[in-house]
Each structure stands twice: as C-alpha cells, then as structure tokens.
C-alpha cells in the first residue's frame, strides 16, 4: 500500500472519530426517542466505508478524494441537522445513500461522455429540457420560503432547478465547443438573460445569479476575451439595479445587506440571527448542544453554515470552506486533464457552478454579499440539492476515470 492511499484512509478514520464523538455527545444531549434514529445514524459510517471500498474497487484511477471530502461534509451536515431538527436526520441519511448511488451511476454514464456531444440536435434538446424544468415551477410550482421553485408529487418536494443546472452545463459545453464567434455569443447571452429573468420572476435570485455567472465564466474560458466578461458583469450590474427598483423582494434583500440593523424583528431577522450565531461561536464555538442555533430561521437548509459556526466556532466554519476549496481544486484538475475540449468544458462548467453556489450561500450568511436562498451542497438538508451535488461530482469522477482508463488502440499507420 503506498502512502497516497494510506493517507486517504487515515483521513477517513478521522471522519469516523468525529462522527463517534459528535453523535455520542448529541445522543447524551437529546435522548433519541426512536430506536430507528440510532440505527440509521449507525448506518452512516457503514455506508461511507462501503462506498469507499466500492470506489477503490470500481475506479482505482478515480477521484477517491471526492468520497473522503463528501463524507466529511455530509457528516458535518448530519451532526448539525440532528442538533437543530432531529426529525429530518433519517430522511437526510436516506438522501445521502441515494446520492452515493447516483454518484456511481453518473460515473459510469459519463465515463464515455462522447455521446453527449454526438447526440443529434443535442443542444436544442438540452436547452429545451433545462428551460422546461425551470419554467415548470412557474406554472405548477409551489411557493415555499418566499421562492416559487418547488414541485410537489404526492408530498415529495423537488426543486427542478437543481436538475436544470446540470443539463444547462451540458448545453453550455456543447454550444461553446463549436460556436464561439460574436453572433453566437450574443444568442447565448440572450438565452441566459431569459433564464435569469424567469428565475427572477420565481423570486429565486440565487439561481439567477448562479446560471448567469456560470455562463459568463464559461464564455471567458472558451474565448479568453475580457470584453465579454466585462460586458457580462456590466449587464448584471444594470440588471441588478433595475431589479432593485422593480421588485420589492430584491430591494428588501439589498437593504438588509446594507443595513441589517434597520428592522431586526422584521425584514432583516434572518441575517441578524445568522450574524449573532456566528459571533456567539467565537474561535472554538460554544460546544455541541450549548449554542442556540434554533433561533436562526431555516437553519437546517440555507443557514446551516451559521449553525456550524456557532457550535464549532469559526475554526469549524473555515474548515468547511477549505474542504470546498479542495473539491474545487480537484474539479479544476479534472478539467485540465480531460482528454478533449468538450470534457474540459463540461468539467469546468460543473465545478464553476458548484463553487459559485458555495460562494453564494456562505457569502450570503456572513453578509459578504446580499443573501440569496441556495443550499450549501452536501451540508444543507434537502433531497434535490444533495442528490444533484452527488451527481455533479459523479460526472467529474466519470470524466476523470474515462480519460485515465481509455485504451486507445491504433491500427498500424503504415
């Protein structure tokens, strides 16, 4: 066994010990009422080790670090979710299990991603699927927490925008691979502004920002033209100012960001509670079970980072951010080493979207940028987000594995 693998399994052992200590404390703090909770909790480390073993077996050349890092992130999420909303714990563990399943499926599907590119009329199919998914909530959607971005099927809530993200990235990679002159970039810009507009109507500003910024980044990747980027961000600024005057909910967000103390019990309640929680944590946190994360609204999904900062301290929060940086680094490495341009674009788009999402929500809850409601991948409670985050990393793993494993056999050339 070489040192590379050994260090990885040692890191996984650390994850295991964090799990043991944290859940021992939490079970003491809040006696679980049902035996079910304990069984599911114990199933989590078993799941991680099975996934790790399978990953080493099935993809010896794959990105094993994805498993280690997501194990850490999902575990921190589970600890916090059990702390603030114990009834969601079992569901979250089931979602994680489904997510890992999808991770493997995506790895196999995208090992040979050429079919995505070769599909006839591919780009029309992708864009219609993506836009269809995004628009569907405008007509059939349900409004939860201020944004109309949910669909319900028999009590199961799904966020179609999460799936649309991946499809949209495939579209972008496919489109930009061949069409990168001014006219086509302008068409793409129009499409993107349309999508951002739909999101703005659904009051889902986080997603509008994600789709728009990812497109600008991807255009920069293929053209290396700073003019496009400058005009992209310039348009975004204009759009932001317009939205500020046109939409009431945008104005509230921006005012809360500029001056959170103006209406603490009302409009700025969320962000102020989040800031209080982070301040209460200090460097080492209040200790598990000793803080009051339950004062923060929507703490299990959007504001979970504040809760972690409160009970694990800012050091815990920084650790989470560093782990995201490592995932980003691995993703960019996959993009750099991809075997063709389409794969590189696909990987770069996926990891940009992922990293921007992390930036949007962490920046939002620490009042670095105006708050918009997106989830923190792998940590927040939420099925759609969890499953699609795993799918994204699975795709990256697939691209990486495919490029390493490909046995190119050439016929004799002479």
């Amino acid at each position, binding site marked *: 066994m*070489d*040192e*590379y693998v050994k*260090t*990885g399994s*040692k*890191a996984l052992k*650390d*994850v295991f*010990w*964090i799990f043991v*200590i*944290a859940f021992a*404390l939490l079970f*003491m*703090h809040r006696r679980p009422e049902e035996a079910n909770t304990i069984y599911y909790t114990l199933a989590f480390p078993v799941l991680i080790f099975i996934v790790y073993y399978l990953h080493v077996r099935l993809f*010896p*050349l794959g990105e094993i*670090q994805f498993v*280690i*890092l997501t194990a*850490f992130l999902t575990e921190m999420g589970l600890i916090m979710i059990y702390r603030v909303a114990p009834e969601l714990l079992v569901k979250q563990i089931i979602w994680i299990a489904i997510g890992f399943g999808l991770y493997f499926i995506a790895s196999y599907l995208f090992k040979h991603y050429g079919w995505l590119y070769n599909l006839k009329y591919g780009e029309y199919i992708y864009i219609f699927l993506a836009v269809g998914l995004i628009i569907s909530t405008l007509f059939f959607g349900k409004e939860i927490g201020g944004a109309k971005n949910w669909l319900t099927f028999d009590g199961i809530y799904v966020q179609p925008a999460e799936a649309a993200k991946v499809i949209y990235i495939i579209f972008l990679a496919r489109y930009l691979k061949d069409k990168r002159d001014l006219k086509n970039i302008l068409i793409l810009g129009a499409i993107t502004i349309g999508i951002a507009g739909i999101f703005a109507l659904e009051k889902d500003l986080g997603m509008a920002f994600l789709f728009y910024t990812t497109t600008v980044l991807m255009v920069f990747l293929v053209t290396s033209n700073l003019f496009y980027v400058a005009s992209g961000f310039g348009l975004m600024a204009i759009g932001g100012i317009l939205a500020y005057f046109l939409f009431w909910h945008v104005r509230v967000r921006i005012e809360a960001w500029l001056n959170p103390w103006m209406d603490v019990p009302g409009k700025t309640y969320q962000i102020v509670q989040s800031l209080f929680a982070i301040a209460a944590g200090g460097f*080492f*946190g*209040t*200790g*598990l*079970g*000793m803080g009051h994360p339950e004062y923060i609204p929507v703490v299990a999904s959007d504001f979970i980072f504040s809760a972690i900062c409160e*009970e*694990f*301290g800012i*050091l*815990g929060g920084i*650790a989470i951010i*560093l*782990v995201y940086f*490592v995932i980003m*680094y691995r993703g960019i*490495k996959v993009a750099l080493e991809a075997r063709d341009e389409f794969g590189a674009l696909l990987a770069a788009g996926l990891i940009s979207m992922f990293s921007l999402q992390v930036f949007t929500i962490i920046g939002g809850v620490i009042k670095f940028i105006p708050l918009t409601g997106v989830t923190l991948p792998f940590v927040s409670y939420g099925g759609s987000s969890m499953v699609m985050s795993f799918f994204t990393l699975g795709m990256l793993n697939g691209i990486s594995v495919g490029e*390493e*494993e*490909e*046995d*190119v*056999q*050439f*016929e*004799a*050339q002479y």
Partner: protein
Amino acid sequence: MYYILSQILKYVLIFLIYLFLYRVFKIIYMDIKGVRRERQLTSAKLSFLTGERTFTLFEVTSIGRSDECDIVIESPYVSARHALIKKRGKRFYIEDLNSTNGTFVNGKRVKVARIKNGDIITLGDVDLKFIA
C-alpha cells in the same frame, strides 16, 4: 456534567477536523509534487525477450535511447524518449511519446494501452516482455 464534557470535546472535535484537513492537504501536496512515489520500485519487471537483461519498473518509468531515461535501450530504431510505463492503481499502462517507429503491444501499434502480465512490447526493433 454535560456542559463540561461538551466544553472539553469541542477542542477535541476541532483538533480532529484539522487533523483531517492536514491529511487532505498532504494528499494534495503529494499530488502536486508528483510524489505519488514515482521513484518507488514496483514488483513488475520488463525483460528483453533475448533474456540478456531484466529491469524492475518504477511507478513511472521512461524508456528510450537517451541517458535521461530510466531504461536505456541502445538501438538506432528507438527514439530518444520513446515510451512511458505508468502504474495507476494496480494496473500498468504504456504510453507512446510520439516516437518515430511507434510502440507495439502484442503486435498492435498503440498510443496508450493497458498492459498485462506476459504482454510483448516492441519498441523499434527491440522486443520486451512485461512481467507483472
């Protein structure tokens, strides 16, 4: 009681979290530095079909006519840097480095190919046997 326990264990938890991070960054460090044990010997060998010499392979082994290569083959048909054999996971791969006369595995010209125990690798006019 619980309060004291929680206060002590929070430092333990932070310590463990950062130990985890240390290991993750160590992996990255090894990755960037290329210290994926490139110079470490593996159990695989490469021997001339004529049986005159046997080489033990590294994690990454370069083959060619130039002195810089790990395995130097003195033949005019072998390029200066001809091919690379890499170990990834448990498998070995041979990669042709745009050589003039090509790299052949069991008679087939390859760019990158997985090699297994007993495969015959031909570089220029030299036949080598791969023993895993």
